[in-house]
């Protein structure tokens, strides 16, 4: 339930911890006495992408001499989601740090984080699809099973995954709950996703499930886009009650009467401390002003309402028609919910990016409807061309204390002021009497990255912060040379490490677009056709 006591409690505990550790904000990764748990994409429900408990990997220790590949374990399929990490978990009679991942072969694995040894798996849950079954859409290649990042409920010792399969004529998306310690499917799972909104039925055969699962107040939220925009399709958010998997599912589409409204962002939906969901939707129309129900190219706030999801507010860029006409989706990026910002009249912010190359900041208290953003700024791409495919990744956030509060975005093509690859922006307040928040460029690479994934930050509190980015080097057909893991000083932008400096030792073979590394307990985990782990070589 929205705003439930348990949910609020968790956020309040987080807040108390951070009152001690950090000047403001909430913890991205969840720390235990033994180490860090990364239980969901970008570390928490707000999708901040910040692990503030990293003590080993610092700007002084991460360089090509001391940092490199520790191990690589090939698995049975391609991995697009981020690995998850649980510290000090007892599996096989031994407590250890464990990495969890899922593949396009519909398989789930648990690996020892220090050695890469497979602890359990492959747990192949159902046959995956080939490209012909997948409507010959080659955005994901070559098999189609579990694309998204799973989510872990540590309290229930359960990992949830969503994959596609075809048990008969109809294709279905199913959600499984697996025992974290054994990989066994929990009773009551899998469930097949089905639902209807405003007369529109959820049709799995037209859809791609790329965005990470998010677990909010016991409900799994699962976003959907299309398969190459072919056919009659609609973007969806589906909700499954983990407490009662057989219960009626929540279903919402931002485009019930038109094609579009894909929710593509690899982070899926984000959430605030009250349990509201934030979804960014892609190409399609807008007719709320005419009494309709279509709201594409938008940032939506969705509030759980009984068996359904109610759209409680929205933001649509004023040029949404142009964005739609040129296939410049808003929804390539997910939204991140920033911690409360000080000294501003707009302390409650949501930040997202668009394929148009812009970063958008909206007030989550009042999203602004059409054209009502708090701030927007072009980061990438030439404003004089109509087509853009500049940002398709979710930004990350870091509170550096006195150094400032930062938002990081990655993208394609050089921006109007020479921005390229990565742009770091400080969250500041403008000089106006009402003191609105805005963003101010802090640093940029000035060097293009080819299809980079979402950035993520590790730090020791507000110090020793590193920004981690995977440059996939793959096009939309997933073809291209090996990827590159980059590490930058998050405050200055100085390059600390790149895996192609020593390709013999550190090569990152088949990293795919949207790939986002997971940093925990001195190691960096990347999904490829398996899991690759990087870390300090002296401890290898």
């Amino acid at each position, binding site marked *: 339930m929205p705003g439930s006591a348990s949910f609020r409690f968790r956020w309040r505990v987080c807040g108390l911890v951070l009152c001690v550790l950090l000047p403001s904000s909430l913890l991205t990764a969840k720390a235990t006495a033994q180490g860090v748990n990364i239980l969901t994409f970008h570390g928490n429900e707000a999708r901040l992408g910040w692990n503030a408990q990293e003590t080993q990997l610092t700007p002084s220790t991460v360089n090509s001499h001391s940092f490199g590949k520790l191990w690589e374990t090939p698995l049975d399929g391609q991995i697009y989601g981020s690995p998850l990490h649980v510290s000090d978990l007892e599996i096989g009679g031994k407590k250890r740090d464990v990495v969890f991942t899922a593949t396009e072969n519909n398989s789930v694995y648990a690996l020892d984080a220090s050695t890469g040894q497979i602890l359990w798996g492959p747990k192949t849950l159902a046959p995956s*699809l*080939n*490209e*012909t*079954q*997948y*409507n*010959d*859409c*080659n955005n994901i290649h070559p098999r189609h099973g579990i694309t998204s990042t799973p989510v872990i409920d540590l309290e229930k010792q359960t990992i949830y995954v969503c994959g596609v399969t*075809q*048990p*008969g*004529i*109809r*294709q279905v998306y199913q959600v499984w709950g697996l025992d974290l310690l054994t990989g066994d499917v929990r009773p009551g799972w899998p469930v097949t996703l089905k639902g209807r909104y405003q007369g529109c039925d959820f049709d*799995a*055969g*037209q*859809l791609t499930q790329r965005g990470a699962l998010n677990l909010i107040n016991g409900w799994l939220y699962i976003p959907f886009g299309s*398969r*190459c*925009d*072919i*056919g*009659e399709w609609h973007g969806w958010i589906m909700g499954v009650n983990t407490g009662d998997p057989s219960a009626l599912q929540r279903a919402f589409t931002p485009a019930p009467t038109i094609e579009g409204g894909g929710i593509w962002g690899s982070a899926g939906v984000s959430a605030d401390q009250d349990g509201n969901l934030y979804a960014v939707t892609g*190409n399609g129309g807008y007719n709320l002003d005419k009494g309709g129900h279509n709201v594409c190219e938008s940032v939506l706030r969705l509030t759980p309402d009984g068996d359904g999801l109610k759209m409680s507010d929205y933001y649509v860029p004023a040029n949404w028609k142009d964005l*739609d*006409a*040129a*296939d410049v989706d808003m929804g390539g990026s997910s939204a991140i919910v920033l911690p409360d910002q000080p000294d501003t009249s707009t302390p409650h912010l949501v930040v997202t990016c668009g394929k148009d190359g812009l970063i958008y900041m909206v007030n989550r208290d009042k999203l602004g409807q059409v054209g009502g953003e708090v701030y927007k700024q072009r980061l990438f791409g030439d404003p004089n*061309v*109509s*087509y853009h*495919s500049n940002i*398709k990744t979710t930004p990350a956030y870091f509170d550096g204390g006195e150094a400032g509060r930062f938002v990081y975005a990655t993208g*394609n*093509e050089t921006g109007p002021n020479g921005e390229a690859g990565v742009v770091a922006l400080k969250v500041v307040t403008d000089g106006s009497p009402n003191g609105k928040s805005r963003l101010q460029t802090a640093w940029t690479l000035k060097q293009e990255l*080819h*299809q980079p994934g979402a950035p993520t930050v590790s730090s020791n509190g507000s110090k020793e912060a590193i920004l981690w980015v995977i440059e996939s080097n793959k*096009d*939309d*057909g997933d*073809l291209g040379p090996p990827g590159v893991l980059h590490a930058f000083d998050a405050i200055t932008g100085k390059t600390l490490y790149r895996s192609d400096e020593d390709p013999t030792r550190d090569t990152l073979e088949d990293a795919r*677009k949207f790939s986002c590394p997971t940093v925990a307990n001195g190691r960096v985990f990347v999904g490829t056709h398996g899991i690759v782990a990087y870390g300090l070589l002296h401890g290898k």
Partner: protein
Amino acid sequence: MLGHQKARLLWLAMVGLGLSLLPGAAQAQFGGDHVEGAIVDIRGDILQVRPRFSMKLTRVIVDDKTEIQSPQIMAINKLQPGVNVFGFGDYDAKGGITPRFLMVSEERRGFFAGKIRGVRGTGYGKSAMFGGKLKSVKPFVVTDDDGKEITATIQGFVPVMHNAKADRTALQVGKMIEASGERTADGLLHARAIDIQQGFGGGPGGAGAVFGEVVAVNGNSLEVMPRFGAETIQAKLKEGATLLRQITVDPDTVKVGDTITVQGKRLEGPPDTNAVAFVLLVGKQTYPQVSPQGFFAAFRGAGNGNVTATGKVASLSPFVLTLEDGKSLTVVIPGQTPVVDLRPLTLAEIKPGDKLMLIGSESKDGGMVTTTLVVGASPIVGFGN
């Protein structure tokens, strides 16, 4: 003199022959990257193109700088000296050539972009190609890029395809195009130039399918707004036209033992063993098909290798039909595949607002003579506008 239809067929055959004789030539001469295929969807500035001989969609970006050319057939005696000419024909022992068809363009791109030198045999019989700047029509003389004059012997009717400039309205779903340009970082093709290839698509004036919505019913004529169009078309029903209503069937109701008709495409492998479905029909029936240039133009092989097969469902996963002759057909079913039933319909049942597919041909007054009409047809079972 050949009749128009025969001339067109010959022209199509020659274009096909010419292209087939030039594997990779167009790509090499265009420079950059290119894609050749059928437009299956248009959204704003983005064309979704299904390449010939491939099922992998490519998205092509069109902007105001994209040069679009649409071939028009013109008479040879209308040619003006100075235009660029490229032709295919038969060479003779003296190095002369008798062209079977000609392509002309004011600009040096596409076939005209590379260096044109003399008469070059293609390696197939006595076929050859030649080109240059037109010096005169009678006699037909061109000057190649080395300054050498080539005199061609014009015998009978020689179709001439003129690459005329066109605007974006010429880019329509179902048209075959060749687009050249640069790949964006995410693999889209940002088109510098697009040539519309009339020879392989449902070109204007021919047969084809239109998807749209009924605006009005006037006697035996329908006013229909095409799905991607801005102006209505008048569709007159031909006497005896087939009228059907498509009913979407819940796939979960199909059981082992049911009779199902599959329409789709054969996959590589033993004949009639494997296929990929475009549509599943309840019972023994056939989904109305347009000509290969229309309904199936977007698919691999542009109409070749299609399969229609009726049988009893032997297995749902994998989906296997036992055909009437006892053979088995294993069918891959993409997620977008509709399962439908087709039921007879009367004209009186058609109402404004109905979404439908029309199959027919262009009439003399520019409207459509409709031979088949399917109310409720899903665009996914046949691309077209």
